[in-house]
């Protein structure tokens, strides 16, 4: 990952920026996975989680890579932002279909049960999944990419 960031730096103009956009898995255990809700008007009723089948270690490794290139003076971390990305599904079948197409997502059985119960109680309810997302913006510094540590 550090190598990828160094290669990208070589492709950036002076003061160019690198944007790292990914699911924010550093937050609480509950928000570490995408959340499923039944929307009724403005009310969000929690149904459960979608299991994200990407190792948490990968997320942490990306964080470490960013810290490393900043430590080496190759980039300056100029912004960290967090926001929610919402996805809307017409029916539970559409959610199932979308999850089946995505190799990184599994619907937890308890979530499926709770969502089914919520939709029986609120047939007009809309299904929404919420992914916590992180945006890191790194600005290329004037330092030369030597790739060596401690300099």
């Amino acid at each position, binding site marked *: 990952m550090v190598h990828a960031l160094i*290669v990208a730096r070589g*492709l950036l103009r002076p003061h160019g920026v690198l944007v790292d956009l*990914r699911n924010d898995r550093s937050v609480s255990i509950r928000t570490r996975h995408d959340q499923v809700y039944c929307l009724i008007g403005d009310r969000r009723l929690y149904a459960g989680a979608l299991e994200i089948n990407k190792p948490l270690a990968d997320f942490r490794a990306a964080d470490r890579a960013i810290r490393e290139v900043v430590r080496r003076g190759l980039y300056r971390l100029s912004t960290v932002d967090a926001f929610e*990305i919402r996805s809307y599904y*017409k029916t539970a079948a*559409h959610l199932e279909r979308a999850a089946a197409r995505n190799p990184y997502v599994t619907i937890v059985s308890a979530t499926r049960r709770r969502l089914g119960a919520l939709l029986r109680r609120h047939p007009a309810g809309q299904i929404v999944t919420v992914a916590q*997302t992180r945006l890191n913006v790194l600005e290329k510094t004037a330092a030369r990419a030597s790739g060596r540590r401690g300099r």
Partner: protein
Amino acid sequence: MKGYRRDPERAETRALRRRVALHDARILDVGCGEGRLTRKIAGAARLVVAIDPNDEVLARARRLTPRRLKKKIEYRQGTAEHPNLRHRRFDVAVFSGSL
């Protein structure tokens, strides 16, 4: 996919535009996949070079690109470590879920 809308509030592009100058920028999109974000940012950009290691995915990205954006987006096979873009320089490099 029908019956499914991802980010209709455009939270992702709004956050990006708030923090990064995309207008008239030369953008490198690393790990573009089917080009969902590529197409969203291409409107404001001068050009977007979108790379992905998977040829089939790139073919799908090309098919999904509307005609008005075709001149702005260049899809190429490549990885973050080997982008095969010698002599090209960009204002912004985007890693969307690909770091």
